[in-house]
């Protein structure tokens, strides 16, 4: 699936929720199900700066596609990153770089985009794109 297709799928899933409670409960559940990052990658280097909770992200490339794994000590943050990983994993670096992130607004998580210091979503997206830039450079 393309990034856009995955995003549309997520938008459709979220459209079934009637209120914030269902939305957040879903994110919490996603967070609980997030496949854990290997312990050896939970290093200081892999921590995303700018989050109130700690978030570790690791990336590797196989067959010109990037795979992400992540963990956080906060469950809602884990839910958010689970969504991001679903969107961006198993994609070509260039597709990641070209992707827009308007779907976040459409699934009612816009508040996580506000530039408060507590917020990690902006930093997370930036970090995933940084990995894409690095791998893109390797490819070209």
């Amino acid at each position, binding site marked *: 699936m393309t990034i856009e297709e995955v995003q549309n799928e997520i938008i459709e899933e979220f459209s079934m929720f009637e209120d*914030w409670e269902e939305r957040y409960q879903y994110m919490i559940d996603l967070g609980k199900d997030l496949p854990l990052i290997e312990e050896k990658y939970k290093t200081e280097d892999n921590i995303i700066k700018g989050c*109130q*909770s*700690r978030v570790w992200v690791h990336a590797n490339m196989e067959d010109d596609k990037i795979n992400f794994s992540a963990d956080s000590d*906060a*469950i809602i943050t884990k839910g958010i990153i689970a969504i991001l990983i679903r969107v961006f994993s198993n994609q070509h670096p260039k597709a990641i770089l070209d992707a827009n992130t308007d779907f976040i607004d459409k699934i009612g998580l816009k508040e996580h985009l506000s530039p408060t210091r*507590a917020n990690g979503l902006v930093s997370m997206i930036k970090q995933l794109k940084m990995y894409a830039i690095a791998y893109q450079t390797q490819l070209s």
Partner: protein
Amino acid sequence: MFDVQKIRKDFPILNRKVNGKPLIYFDNAATSQTPQQVIDVIVDYYTNYNANIHRGVHSLSQEATDAYEQARIKIQKHFNAKQPYEIIYTAGTTHSINLVANGFTSLLQKGDEIIVSALEHHSNIVPWQMLCARTGAELKVIPMNEDGELILSDFDELLNKNTKLVFVNHISNALGTINPIEYIIEKAHSVGAAVLVDGAQSCPHLKPDVQALDVDFYVCSAHKICGPTGVGMLYGKEEWLNKLPPYQGGGEMIAEVTFEKTTYAGLPHKFEAGTPNICGGIAFGAALDYMNRIGFEQIAKYENELLAYGTEQLLKIEALKIYGTAKEKTSVISFNVGSIHPYDIGTILDKMGIAVRTGHHCAQPIMDFYKIPGTIRASFMFYNTKEEIDTFIVALKKAIMMLS
């Protein structure tokens, strides 16, 4: 007669809704809300007499200057400073601390020692680290115990003839501990050290008497005391303020300027370069008037009731742990629930219209002491109610259920 419902009518923001729910504002230790009486003063200033001060001969400038200087006298009286010029207007607590830390650069040398407490906010740690880096002085720390109280016997041992400065907050922002500053000031003075007390968290809850305390410097921000952001004060004993060199150069702080030499103005202008936050200063005075009309004894009594009630209700929740259980504390409750991350609880509470602070509260050393990433902090002011605490408890239980 203290009537919380009547008081709440003074605060228009308390009527608003957040995420469709009535706002419950429990983040008062970060900033307090502003009563209509203070908002009116701000509006009146910009509507009727906005002008630059201390220079114009015209009427508006004189009116603005008078109001600004009257407010300084209100602040002086509130803190019982000996002279109005011992009150320096600043941009807030952090600015005040930096002003003093900067001034001490030329007064310290290698071998000198500075003492801070383990309970400090970053704003009362970093400027002193920077001062130490500039001067070669050494930073010592008064440790705390599990309850979040300073260990005074350790403080006694840290003091010696090389101790030049002691910095401590009156009340800890992260835990609410009221520190025994009377003892600390007396002991510090016995070895000839100066003391700066950070009153950012104490001024909303009590009325410090700087002369009775015999404190050398006392600092606070207006926005914690129902005033606007961007203005605060530095109280300094006249002799100390005269010893410190000016902090920033500019207009207002000079007596005479030639390209060869400038002579500085006297107190307080020496430290007030440039056009100040005129409206902010006037509103600061109005905020103190407002608080004094209610009365700090009444405020403290009511807030202690809220603290006792909130603590009792919170402790009924399973796996909830309160950090900061000092015997002397103010209406701040810092806590965690089991292994749930504070950020998660804060996010869910916000969805239910409840504002609390989550994180390390700019006091990472305290979090390191307890080996936690942060806490949820509910901090009450005199306009909060027991009913709000009840709603908060229900919301908190729901958040815990969702997150477990």
